[in-house]
């Protein structure tokens, strides 16, 4: 099979990055910050809990031994305990994760679909009004801090659209009678739309610029001229030859934007009080609940690494030139 070495290499790289991420996580939360995750400086924690932490984290042992304990715990799915509630972190992460994923997925999907469409049209109709509108629109949204856009949307648009601006579900739903599945779904969606839209708009700005740029570069290639010389119509050339080639750099750049998406998601959830991972992180920071912060950060980092690997493999699938 072509390029098995490539796939193996990328997977190994991903594993390597995972190790780096885990180690970085340890270094940040344990050694550099003076064991932020221990309950040492926690004022609301009981004495028993502090003892418990000391034991399970191995605080009286050497850093290297602590690291090994940490790795062992992770392998078993143990991410420590919240300093605030003393519950296992893993049980705290699950619900917010289920809430965040659909919202971010919706927003990113919106951004990809509209970003690609706008970018392609802008590049194809270079120099025309459509191009300029797309360029300035993209630049505009790209320069907006997502939290600010969220606030603006809440201020001006939410009321007008009649959409809720906080939480993920209507608290009155289910009090008087059992809500049907459709009702619940609609309710969830209503609450998801504004945060997803806010996130989506800012990313859409970035993607429009990326796609436009990649497409412009592709349209300057010789094979585009050849295609035109062969008699293909413009739109046919764009679709058959331009798009597939422009897609390649777009995949790379989208993969690089994941950090930004996460950052955007965190701020957007905060603005809309949307109870996902982002809001959890903000609360954890506020309450100095470091184990939760550490686990959430690790989780996000791992997701990004996985997505990057998927992007690499997708790129490999699409570009026949990649073999080494």
């Amino acid at each position, binding site marked *: 099979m072509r390029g098995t070495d490539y796939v193996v290499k990328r997977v190994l790289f991903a594993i390597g990055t995972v190790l780096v991420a885990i180690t970085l996580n340890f270094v940040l939360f344990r050694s550099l910050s003076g064991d932020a995750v221990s309950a040492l400086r926690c004022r609301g924690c009981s004495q028993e809990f502090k003892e418990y932490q000391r034991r399970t984290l191995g605080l009286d042992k050497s850093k290297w031994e602590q690291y090994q304990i940490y790795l062992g715990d992770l392998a078993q799915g143990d991410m420590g305990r919240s300093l605030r509630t003393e519950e296992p972190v893993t049980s705290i992460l699950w619900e917010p994760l289920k809430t965040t994923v659909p919202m971010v997925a919706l927003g990113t999907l919106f951004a990809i679909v509209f970003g690609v469409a706008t970018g392609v049209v802008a590049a194809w109709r270079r120099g025309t009004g459509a191009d300029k509108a797309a360029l300035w629109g993209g630049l505009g949204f790209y320069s907006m801090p997502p939290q600010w856009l969220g606030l603006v949307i809440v201020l001006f648009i939410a009321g007008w659209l009649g959409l809720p601006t906080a939480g993920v579900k209507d608290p009155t739903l289910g009090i008087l009678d059992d809500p049907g599945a459709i009702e619940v779904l609609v309710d969830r969606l209503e609450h998801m739309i504004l945060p997803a839209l806010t996130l989506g708009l800012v990313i859409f700005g970035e993607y429009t610029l990326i796609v436009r740029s990649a497409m412009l570069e592709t349209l300057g*290639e*010789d*094979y585009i*001229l*050849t*295609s*035109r*010389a*062969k*008699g*293909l119509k413009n739109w046919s050339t764009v679709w058959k*030859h331009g798009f*597939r*080639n422009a897609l390649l750099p777009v995949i790379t750049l989208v993969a690089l934007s994941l950090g930004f998406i996460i950052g955007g998601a965190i701020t957007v959830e905060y603005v809309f009080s949307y109870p996902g991972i982002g809001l959890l992180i903000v609360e954890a920071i506020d309450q100095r609940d470091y184990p939760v912060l550490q686990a959430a950060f690790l989780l996000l980092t791992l997701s990004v690494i996985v997505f990057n690997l998927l992007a690499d493999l997708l790129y490999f699938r*699409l*570009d*026949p*030139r990649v073999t080494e």
Partner: protein
Amino acid sequence: MTPALLEVEDLNVWFDLPNGGRLHAVQGVSLSIAAGTRLGMVGESGCGKTTTVLALMGLLPPTASVSGRIMLEGVDVLERGEQTISPHRWKDVAMVFQGAMNAFDPVKRIGEQIAEPMELHGVATGKEAAARVRSLLETVGISPDRARSYPHELSGGMRQRAAIAMALACTPRILLADEPTTALDVMVQAQILELLTHLSDELGLALVFVTHDLPIVAQTCTHAAVMYAGRIVEQGPTDALYHATRHPYTRLLWAATPDLESQDDVVSIPGVPPRLDHAIVGCPFAPRCDRAEARCVAERPELRTVGEGHVSACHFAESLEVVA
């Protein structure tokens, strides 16, 4: 006398410049090409030969303005620009581009790309197209199995030959080749020239060969046109141009060609070609000509007949010594 397949009358091409002026890239070019003719177009970079050839297929950018007539078997295809020219692309006139190495879409297989114009112009589809592709590849000396290869899997020389195969896909009457052998090693160069000559002789294919490499013209072409500053300064059967040169520029071009057998020094032509964004008074070559006189600077020489099918644009065309 065989009727002309392609007649170009008084072709002019201007390009809009970003600062508002216009570049007069092709100035009153007229050509007459019969079936089976191989016309070499020579001149320094920027003399307008590539632009002329691109104009024949209407592959000019939107900053271009054209005037003149391009008669394909008696019909003016330039009459309404893109509209009248595009139906003839690839079917009647096909092109092998400069740096044809990049003429292929890197993410599609060679065979698919050669078959593309066949299917587009209704020449052949499906299995029949695939069979034609294989036979075309054989004609240019590539194993038919390579149809399933991607462009990057072929060597430079093979890609060039594949580009020729692609150009022949719809059996055009005229093949335009822009520097098809530049950047190829001598052996491959010879093979390709031999192939083109063969095709021209066997199929009656008319060839327009753009190059700055004079020995190729001497070896392969039946006729030649020398361009300078957007104009044709000498044109005629290759023999006549070689043995009975009637223009100082052509003479200097021949002299500038390193010849393994001769003992003479290589003479370079001092100076640079004139800018084409202003109108030129007098002979454009006068500043660099070794035989220029007062008349040359004041009065522009028109093309005049100096032999059978042989024209030259020099005031002293008739009196130039014949160089062996």
